[in-house]
């Protein structure tokens, strides 16, 4: 049987980390020595059997609390981590055995902007673009137009990144990712910690890209409103597992209806996980 080629296919992927265990009580001297010789490890199931398919033109949202495994999943897709088991395909290519091909068509924006802080945005962007075989003049032109659309004044591109606010740095990070015209765009909490204005700018820009409908976009967030506004489909992740997924409408139907107000994604999330999402950021 022919299976259709999705933009992104993830099958039963797991990633476990080992971490040295924190002692439950204050250690005695010989216990400390014993731990140095043979450290006690605990296993963290950061991603624990996740499968998903995303089609071209879709924004797939992954909603989860801190430490639920969102970034680990994104790193597995972006070839920065090797899965313990399971497979990931990007436009039919395996991310492990065909990583070079996958890297060409993919880019990522992470929570923290990650730049050479003393270099200017222009220098950082030109460096990043060169790695994808894009010339500096082309990179400059493209970056300018992306940054303008994000509400970033192009004349500030020559300032050291250190001098820019977090919101502005994040806009440069988005420009870095889009500069390479990725077919798969991974957005790992792109708006977390931004001021309301930058947040709106970034969200509006993501909507713009979505309207072009020619890329696969995965967006992680712990902002319910953002997920409702931007995503075609949403998965809720908890302890490395998807506990629900579907369109926003389908998810809303999962929680018991309320009498006075309409159900929100937040209600569904609390109903399914028994947890509140991080306060203050939604």
């Amino acid at each position: 049987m022919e299976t259709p080629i999705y933009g992104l296919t993830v099958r039963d992927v797991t990633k476990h980390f080992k971490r040295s265990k924190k002692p439950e009580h204050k250690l005695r001297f010989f216990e400390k020595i014993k731990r140095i010789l043979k450290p006690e490890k605990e296993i963290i199931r950061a991603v624990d059997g996740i499968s998903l398919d995303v089609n071209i033109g879709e924004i797939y949202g992954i909603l989860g609390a801190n430490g639920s495994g969102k970034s680990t999943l994104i790193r597995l897709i972006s070839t920065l981590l090797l899965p313990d088991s399971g497979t990931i395909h990007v436009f039919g290519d395996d991310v492990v055995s065909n990583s070079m091909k996958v890297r060409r068509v993919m880019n990522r924006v992470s929570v923290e902007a990650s730049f050479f802080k003393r270099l200017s945005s222009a220098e950082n962007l030109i460096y990043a673009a060169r790695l994808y075989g894009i010339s500096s003049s082309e990179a400059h032109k493209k970056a300018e137009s992306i940054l303008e659309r994000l509400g970033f004044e192009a004349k500030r591109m020559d300032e050291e990144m250190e001098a820019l606010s977090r919101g502005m740095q994040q806009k440069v990070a988005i420009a870095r990712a889009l500069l390479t015209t990725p077919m798969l765009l991974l957005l790992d909490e792109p708006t977390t910690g931004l001021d309301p204005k930058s947040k709106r700018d970034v969200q509006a820009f993501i909507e713009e890209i979505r309207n072009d409908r020619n890329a696969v976009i995965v967006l992680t967030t712990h902002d319910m409103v953002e997920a409702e506004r931007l995503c075609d489909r949403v998965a809720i992740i908890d302890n490395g597992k998807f506990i629900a997924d579907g369109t926003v409408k389908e998810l809303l139907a999962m929680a018991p209806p309320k009498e006075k107000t309409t159900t929100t994604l937040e209600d569904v999330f609390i109903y399914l996980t028994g947890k509140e999402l991080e306060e203050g950021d939604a």
Partner: protein
Amino acid sequence: MLNIRRETIISYAFIERNFNLLKRYLNWEILFFSYSIVNALTIGLIMVGRGSSQDVLYLVIGALIWGFLSIMMREVSDAITWERWEGTIEYTFMAPIYRITHLVGSCFFAILYGLLRTGLVLAIMPLFFGEHIDLGSANWFTMGVTVCVSSLSFIGIGLMAAIFPLLSPEKGQAATGILQSVLLLISGIYYDITVLPDWLQPLSHISPATYTLRSIRAAMLENASIESQAGNLLLLLVIGIVLIPFGFWIFHLAENYAKRVGRLKRSG
């Protein structure tokens, strides 16, 4: 297929980036440069008034060449440390480039930078030592060839040293430092290796720095011709040809290990 032209252009990204960083940190650069001068001076002055001008030059060459080789060994490792602190390493590793392209770019910068800095210090030395430094009988050609050939070995060692910061940005630089001091001890930088204890001497013979220093001193002090150094240079070439692929291979293993256990990320 490896497209050489494309890869060369891409590796230029690393050279350009490093020179940009160097420009931004120019005040630090001046500080390091002054340190190199002070270091060569202190070591050279040990012999002034105690030995011949040849003896002074013997030590100054030791200081300068050690400085150059240290840059070869440290630059790649330092670039990785830097990228780990900034968090850009994830973006560099996500890019569609061969690791060889990446590392060749970094190594090339190391050579350019090392030559530039060491050359400047060397040019300044006569100002301080006057007649104590006599470069009149130096064979610059032999020296130049030796520097080029020995760069290969030290690039190889540099690639190996770069795995330390890849696995741990906190402890990595210290580990590179330890490797360096061992080489400093065994390679006869400031003394003849025959003064080392017997059990250490075999190690001297596998250190490429031993042969580098030998040929450079012969060139600078005794006007040695390239033919007279052929044996030494051939040995250096062989060590280089072995160490470079070995360095790439070790780096590749370390990268895979880092991706398996999750060592690349800093936060988020």
